[in-house]
């Protein structure tokens, strides 16, 4: 195990985060506040409770998750894409470091930043709506799981992308729709039966359900199924990353 290498990559990536700390924090706080003004107060006041939870509080897990997904993917993908773009990847490839250690460094840093932002949003949200968290331990666990899961996904995206266009294409055209349609801001029970079935193919559904359960103790999908599906998503990402390093896909010729 090359500990200093993992620490180096992690430290390098975190330094990148702290260089842009103002925009890293201001942007999610502002976005969250806007969501609360629009959905929580303006529209939410006219909406009934969902599963016995006031709408303003109901959207909090969705908002946190939306930011965590976006941040995880963008940080992790940029983290590995940028060295490819500038050519500095040569140093990582020539270092005595294993694939696991490379992933630990990049994904660990991206997940850390996501969790920091998730926590900031949670704090911001608590200023707008009274929040009670039924399972605080699980809330933290799920936050870690989804940060890691989507940072792994972002890593794959960063390796695959060969231009900045592709790098922004996937989050905008795939991840954001999946998040919005995955029940981040509503219960999928509200959907007509056909769309309810369709939406079950969306991995985000399981993660948000799990996350919301940790807040309110109620869920769209059973906790066991959600956890299993989320871990399956992580396993899929890990499998893909293993294949990337085994074949050198887009990293080594």
């Amino acid at each position: 195990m090359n500990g200093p290498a993992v620490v180096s990559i992690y430290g390098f990536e975190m330094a990148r985060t702290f260089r842009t700390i103002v925009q890293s924090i201001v942007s999610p706080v502002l976005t969250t506040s806007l969501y609360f003004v629009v959905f929580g107060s303006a529209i939410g006041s006219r909406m009934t409770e969902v599963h016995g939870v006031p709408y303003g509080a109901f959207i909090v897990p969705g908002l946190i998750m939306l930011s965590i997904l976006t941040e995880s993917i963008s940080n992790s993908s940029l983290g590995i894409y940028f060295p490819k773009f500038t050519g500095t990847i040569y140093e990582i490839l020539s270092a005595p470091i294993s694939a696991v250690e490379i992933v630990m460094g990049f994904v660990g840093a991206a997940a850390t930043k996501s969790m920091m932002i998730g926590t900031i949003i949670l704090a911001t949200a608590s200023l707008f709506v009274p929040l009670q968290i039924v399972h605080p331990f699980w809330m933290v666990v799920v936050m870690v799981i989804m940060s890691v899961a989507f940072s792994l996904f972002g890593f794959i995206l960063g390796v695959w992308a060969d231009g900045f266009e592709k790098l922004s294409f996937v989050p905008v055209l795939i991840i954001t729709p999946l998040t919005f349609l995955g029940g981040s801001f509503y219960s999928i029970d509200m959907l007509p039966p056909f769309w309810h079935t369709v939406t079950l193919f969306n991995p985000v559904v399981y993660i948000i359900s799990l996350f919301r359960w940790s807040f309110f103790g109620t869920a769209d999908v059973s906790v066991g199924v959600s956890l299993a599906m989320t871990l399956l998503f992580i396993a899929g990402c890990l499998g893909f990353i293993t294949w990337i390093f085994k074949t050198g896909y887009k990293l080594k010729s």
Partner: protein
Amino acid sequence: MPSIISVSGLSKKYKSGLEALSGINLEIERGEIFALLGPNGAGKTTLISIICGIVTPSDGKVTVDGHDIITDYRAARSKIGLVPQELTTSAFETVWATVSFSRGLFGKPANPAVIEKVLKDLSLWDKRNSKIRQLSGGMKRRVLIAKALAHEPTVLFLDEPTAGVDVELRRDMWNLVRGLRASGVTIILTTHYIDEAEEMADRIGVINKGRIMLVDDKTSLMRKLGRKQLALQLQDKLSAVPAVLAPFKLELSASGLEITYTYENQEEARIPELLKAVTDAGIVFKDLHTSQSSLEDIFVNLVTDRKGATP
């Protein structure tokens, strides 16, 4: 003592079908400066990239200090420092941070004293808190060398180290290389300049089209490759070379207006002697120029020689 790097039967065929290396066998001796000489696209960078772990070989075996680069990559790679050809640096880190990063990446615990020494050796100490993007091209090249040395490697690869480098940096770099060699570091550099190989190397390998054409001691190789000519344009037509000039083996052109002296690099010292002899013989020349066979000529010669040798 066994070689520090041993390459046997190494081949690389890229997905595009390009065969960059075919059947390379090469032994690098401990503590030497080895220059890999070849034209652009000869396979120099591919060979280095395979040894360093950046490119996957198609076939063959490489060991670094006895460690296989695939099965025992950690031990092999931790011995190597690589200075790439391109100026590939991150932009926003400070010099100190990026050099420390490299040390960590190669598994060495932080050691500010080592980083300080490396930066001072490369005249980067004053710039340690500068961001890399603020540095000039030459300074960036120094940063890349500092990064490669941060983990105290025993083998240093310099890929085209003096391409686009000013005289001062070039001199500093050679001093550094000599100092490293004195401390026991093996240095492998690639170049397409003959004089560079001549100045620095103990041994020279010539590579062309993915094959090692020859590997030889510098002095014997320069004798084969470094042929120069001095041409004198004469004021008056000469019918024959005077007998006093016979030791120089001069050639007289058909027009009788030019004499050519062919010599090896080591014989430059004889030129004043020749010019004096020419003047003493009463021959007046109005112009002179020297020429050196270009690397391309040399490769053409090497290739034709090879073809001639095999029936």
